[in-house]
């Protein structure tokens, strides 16, 4: 009798242990995910192959751009967010290809594809010893602008490679629901 009770208890413990292993085990997607290199606005964040320094964030209702010699004004359903960054390669020439804006609710906004004709956007090739300026342009919902995180990585799928995660800090909201300091039109013709 004692022996049987002991066996049952042992079995239950084994089941519990296995369940614990199952729920605490990281999933494959987490194991091969990007490796974060964290920092905040103004820091130089150092990844495996590149360094990135985000200087400032500007918000605008409209962007003035030059498309094949023609001036255009681009509107958006949310608000334009323009981040000015400096990139530097570490020991090898490389290409930084992707940037996203992760809002406080976890919504992830990839760099806009509506400006693919413009210079100084990703992908940017960088060489060791020759830092380069670039601009990252996003269309975001106004309520996803405060306490957002900028994610920058070399490849689209940054599996097992560095991803810079730059905390952009709080942004005050103006009376119109847009971030305070949102300009009406941001002129992208001036170099960053």
């Amino acid at each position: 009798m004692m022996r049987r009770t002991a066996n049952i208890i042992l079995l239950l413990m084994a089941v519990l242990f296995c369940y614990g292993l199952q729920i605490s085990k990281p999933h494959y997607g987490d194991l091969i995910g990007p490796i974060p290199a964290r920092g905040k606005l103004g820091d130089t964040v150092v990844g495996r192959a590149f360094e990135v320094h985000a200087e400032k964030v500007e918000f605008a209702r409209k962007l003035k751009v030059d498309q094949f010699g023609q001036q255009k004004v681009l509107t958006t359903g949310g608000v334009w967010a323009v981040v000015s960054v400096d990139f530097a390669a570490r020991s090898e020439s490389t290409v930084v290809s992707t940037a996203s804006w992760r809002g406080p609710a976890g919504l992830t906004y990839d760099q806009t594809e509506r400006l693919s004709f413009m210079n100084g956007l990703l992908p940017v090739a960088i060489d060791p010893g020759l830092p380069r300026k670039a601009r990252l342009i996003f269309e975001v919902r106004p309520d996803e602008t405060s306490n957002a995180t900028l994610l920058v990585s070399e490849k689209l799928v940054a599996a097992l490679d560095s991803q810079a995660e730059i905390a952009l800090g709080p942004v005050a909201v103006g009376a119109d629901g847009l971030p305070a300091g949102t300009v009406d039109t941001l002129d992208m013709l001036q170099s960053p």
Partner: protein
Amino acid sequence: MTAEALDQEHKSGERKWRRRSLWSLVLLIPLALAVESYDSVRTLLRNNDLFPRRVAWGQSAHFAGSDWKLTNLRGAFGMSNLPPDSVPVLADFQVKIGNSDLQKLWLGCKVMLIDKDGRRWSPTSIVSLKTPDNIGNCVSAIFSGARTGDTLNLRETFLVPKEATKSIWPAIGVASERPHFLLFQLEKD
């Protein structure tokens, strides 16, 4: 034989096998690790230029079925519209084709500059200098249809910071020769 003695013998035999099994683990675990990691190690070696083979100035080296020679390395000073303190560097090679199956042998061809600290520069797209028609680059050469015995002139353009120009060497790697790559010494070395 009594039952007790039989049982005793059984037990000692079991113990002997258990010990053998435990000792065999010493061999089996490293073996299993080696088999498991074989593919990863192979990929690592095949995809990286790790071990340089030095080529003296003016000499040519047999690599990926052809004979490679560095003919010139120079900076193109005085260009405008470049990032501050940067210099375009041109590397010229002469290749005498041996095995003409370039699409297989030269696949993944990568020309680079390496400095004394191990920093590596890939060809740039920022500077585009006009090159004569008879000069190609590594990738265009693969599809040039060159035959055995032909001589190809290749040129690659790099953008390098001024401070690094004093100590850079050109290097060439191709998938078929990795992890080995050619590292060309200069006249001054």
